[in-house]
């Protein structure tokens, strides 16, 4: 009997790390953000500097997500997945489909994303967290984009993102601020191709978001995304949303939003509800 004790202790010590590595990593709740429609960790419409999942030191993490938006004349569906390591790098893949409910037909593209945390921590560093990302996008249907003046069926965006959490600053609640500067040639984020008859060069665009943690499970906020206007046939608007994200634990996140995507391909006032469900591992 007596000789069992060291064995049990050894067993517990040996088992604990392997159990811990099977569960989502040990970052704090909600610090993996949610999955943006382009696949990167962020809000709904913009990437954040945060790395997907909950991995910290030497851990692996990842997410899968399904998102949908129902606009006046379009329906957006996104299936996305990301893997991340060491709270340092994030590799994401997303397939985006835009059903043209009024015009007829469907636009579809794939986005491969890579994000690297360059510096800092949104929670613990006074200068916040800084990441550099690229998103390579490829249109799976190019007939319509090319007919309306797009120059290329694929393109690569590069963005620099900064995120910081401010503890207890809004009525004692934590405030999360994010900003991106993105170089892009994409028309309607790539659904209508890259470059156009009006402009065919990289332009810097600003993206920003602000969210308040009502408590550690509920984040309420808004996002804004500037976009280029490269095509003569129709004007392109900036995007924005109001969102509520519910992150009950490190496995699940549900985001509901009201998105306003302005005019798309000549059809004005495209707004409507957005819903995204994310699982983390």
């Amino acid at each position, binding site marked *: 009997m007596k000789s069992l004790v060291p064995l049990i202790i050894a067993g517990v010590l040996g088992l604990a790390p392997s159990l811990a590595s099977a569960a989502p990593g040990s970052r704090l709740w909600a610090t993996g953000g949610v999955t943006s429609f382009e696949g990167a960790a962020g809000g709904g419409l913009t990437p954040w500097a945060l790395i997907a999942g909950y991995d910290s030191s030497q851990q692996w993490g990842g997410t899968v997500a399904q998102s949908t938006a129902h606009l006046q004349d379009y329906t957006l569906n996104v299936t996305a997945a990301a893997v991340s390591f060491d709270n340092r790098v994030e590799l994401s893949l997303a397939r985006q489909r835009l059903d043209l409910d009024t015009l007829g037909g469907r636009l579809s593209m794939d986005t491969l994303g890579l994000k690297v945390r360059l510096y800092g921590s949104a929670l613990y560093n006074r200068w916040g967290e800084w990441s550099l990302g690229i998103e390579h996008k490829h249109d799976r249907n190019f007939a319509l984009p090319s007919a309306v003046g797009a120059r290329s069926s694929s393109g690569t965006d590069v963005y620099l993102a900064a995120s910081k959490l401010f503890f*207890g600053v809004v009525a004692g609640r934590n405030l999360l601020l994010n900003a991106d500067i993105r170089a892009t040639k994409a028309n309607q984020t790539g659904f209508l191709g890259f470059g156009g008859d009006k402009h065919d060069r990289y332009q810097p665009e600003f993206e920003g978001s602000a969210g308040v943690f009502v408590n550690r499970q509920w984040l309420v906020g808004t996002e804004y995304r500037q976009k280029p206007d490269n095509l003569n046939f129709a004007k392109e608007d900036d995007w*924005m949303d109001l969102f509520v994200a519910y992150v009950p634990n490190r496995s699940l996140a549900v985001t509901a939003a009201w998105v306003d995507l302005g005019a798309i391909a000549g059809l004005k006032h495209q707004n409507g509800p957005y819903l995204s469900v994310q699982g983390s591992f």
Partner: protein
Amino acid sequence: MYPRLTRTLLAALCLCGLGACSSMPSASDSLYQQLGGKAGISKTVTMFLYQVVDDDRINHYFAGVNADRLQKRLTNQFCQLSGGPCHYGGDNMHKVHAGMHLTDADFNALVEDLILAMEKRRVPISAQNRLLGKLAPMHAQIVGK
């Protein structure tokens, strides 16, 4: 450009603002008082240490540590940080944790245990956040040393 959305946004902000304000402490309410004074802080620290001891991710660091002394030191530290009439007499954070080679994962686990302890003690969210805001910058002195 977005009159409808702007109105919705304003309405949403007002609602959130009102909701949050009603649970906000008055300006005279210091963090120290919100944490329940020294007695409240001491209970929270005890709960915190129970959480840590239960946490297989990091409890091995605390094997053989004098729990009484750690409890008193942490209580005095949190008390002083929150503006209370206490003096933390221990060494600085860098010196205390030097040689432990603590990782981000360790630090996150400890912060999580503190949050869970404060929730169990029903510390108001605003006080939780303000205390965390005072501890978060210590990360640089504690991790990787």
